[in-house]
């Protein structure tokens, strides 16, 4: 659990944080959402003490982060940034092994961990282990950046717009990877983003910030349905409120048993969202879609009218 208590921080005349109170529950995937200059990066960097607060404090599992020496604290916390910041003079393996090396792991254990992480991030170890950062695409480099942050198995992962510099296709692939990683490991993730779609696709909790303050914190659904502030409503609505709502609802929760389903309905996979169902119907010019189960067998029907219950 990460807790911000009345945190204030100024840079000269610029007030970056103006009394931030926020709790990130254990195991959450929390996204700090807001426009540029809202104070999101400042908040993130307070957690691993890259920035010290002027007032207030930050607690990790109830313990003030200031109580521990900064380097030791940081080695327990994964850190991923938009610029990635791979060390250009080190191979991929050496980059990933950086924190384990600082922690004094022996070489064999580091090598095994590097293999494991490359496989986890879907990079073939034999092909990528010995490459230099200059020989990687942007997406591959950020996969290595994420692997490096996970190397010493931290409980907490801090990410500052990690996919901001990637093209849309690569970004979506890495978002899917990260969602899967969060589901598989249960790590607490605190991520900064200015992209509502990204927040909705990933977050279990969203904290909307503006001008150094928290506007609202809640589940994605809460923020969509009951915004507490006009700025939150404008941000979450964005002219696509209905579609965003659909994207949060699993199609399976709207499906009925497929009694006498007509022939030729479009099919959607088990994990599809209600938005995927609508897309399939619109594409096929049909008024219903056939939901498959995990084995590909028809498991139910989602009708156009059912989407109104989302």
């Amino acid at each position, binding site marked *: 659990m990460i807790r911000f208590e009345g945190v204030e921080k100024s840079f000269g005349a610029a007030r970056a944080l103006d009394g931030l109170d926020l709790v990130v529950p254990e195991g959450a995937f929390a996204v700090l959402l807001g426009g540029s200059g809202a104070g999101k990066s400042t908040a993130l960097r307070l957690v691993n003490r*890259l920035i010290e607060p002027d007032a207030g404090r930050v607690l990790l599992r109830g313990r003030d982060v200031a109580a521990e020496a900064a*380097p030791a604290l940081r080695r327990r916390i994964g850190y991923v940034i938009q610029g990635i*910041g*791979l*060390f250009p003079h080190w191979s991929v393996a050496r980059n990933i092994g950086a924190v384990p090396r600082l922690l004094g792991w022996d070489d064999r254990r580091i090598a095994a961990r590097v293999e494991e992480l490359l496989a986890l991030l879907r990079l073939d170890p034999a092909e990528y282990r010995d490459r230099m950062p200059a020989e990687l695409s942007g997406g591959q480099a950020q996969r290595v950046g994420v692997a490096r942050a996970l190397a010493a198995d931290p409980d907490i992962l801090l990410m500052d717009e990690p996919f901001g510099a990637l093209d849309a296709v690569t970004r979506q692939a890495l978002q899917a990877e990260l969602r899967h990683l969060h589901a598989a490991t249960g790590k607490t993730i605190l991520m900064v983003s200015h992209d509502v779609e990204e927040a909705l696709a990933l977050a279990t909790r969203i904290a909307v910030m503006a001008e150094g303050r928290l506007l609202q914190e809640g589940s994605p659904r809460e923020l969509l349905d009951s915004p507490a502030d006009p700025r939150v409503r404008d941000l979450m609505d964005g002219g696509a409120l209905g579609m965003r709502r659909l994207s949060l609802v699993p199609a399976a929760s709207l499906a009925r048993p497929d009694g006498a389903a007509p022939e030729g309905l479009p099919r959607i996979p088990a994990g599809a969202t209600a938005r995927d169902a609508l897309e399939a119907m619109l594409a096929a010019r049909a008024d219903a879609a056939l939901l498959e189960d995990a084995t590909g067998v028809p498991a139910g029907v989602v009708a156009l009218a059912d989407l109104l219950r989302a």
Partner: protein
Amino acid sequence: MAGFAVLAPNRIVPPRAVALMDADAFAWLLPAAAAALGAAFLSGRAAALACGAALAGLLAGLGATGAALAGGSTVARLGPAAGAWVAAAALLLAARLALGRAGAGAVARALAAAGFAAALAALLAAGLLDHVSLVREAVARGPEVRAALAAHLGLSAAALLPALAIGAALGAAAFARPGAAPAIIGGLAALQVIPAIALFALLIEPFAALSRAVPLLREVGLRGIGAAPAVFGVFLYLLLPVAAATRAALGAAPAAAVDAARGMGFTPAQALLRVRLPLGAPVFLGGVRTASVQAVGLVTLGALVGAGGFGVLMFQGLGQFAPDLILLGALPVAALALVLDAALRAAEEGLAR
């Protein structure tokens, strides 16, 4: 002096021009011309090799011409004149361009230069160049040349080594305190504005006073005239390239990599040793290269305030209107600077990889 070369019966009498057609050395010059012509049709390394061969042939041709025209005289000498100089310069340039076209790196260029130096040494050892004026002069002044080389290297090192230590410290201070950087770098840059000869002259009086005041210093040889003002003056000039390169080197690592290192738990010392220094080393070495080449060049002027080195030969030659003697001082300085430059460039390239 026009012509291909000039012939003098000894080093005092003014020489007379020798045309290419007078030269009885076509055994050397024809193959050299053929090689030069071949270089025009070859590409890359082969062309560079052909240029080198042509240059060696040209030198040997000069030597052979000298031997033929001097008859039995042991003091007559043949000097290169406009024709030979232009030919040599054109061949050097062609070789360098060919190496560039071949994509040769600093290491390959250093190897090529070493190969040419070896060929030159072989020509000398075989006595083929004995009648070339410069070689005559060098042989006559063997001990002087050796003393000048030792003094030149000693003076250069005496200025360079402290400049590396103190310049690096100043550069590091400028990096660590950006507020102080303009004062530090600006102060060192202001020194560069003073002409070297003026700076050396200005330093004579303080060193003389110091030597009068502290007998111990006087006993170890520190005087107003001599090595002290030259070494100290050159040292002052070298501070800027070293300090500026150190500052740039410390800032050369990408900002994201430095932020990542800090955020992942590198201590400041670990970030310095494992990230900043390795990534900045080529930049620092570039500053060392600039400073070394400058040191070798500036020390030459030290002869004017009584320091030794090749400057002594150069200024003697200027005083006596003896071009061979001037060259005997100037060519080794140029060669030293080129060798240092090539060696440090090769090291930089190795580091950057």
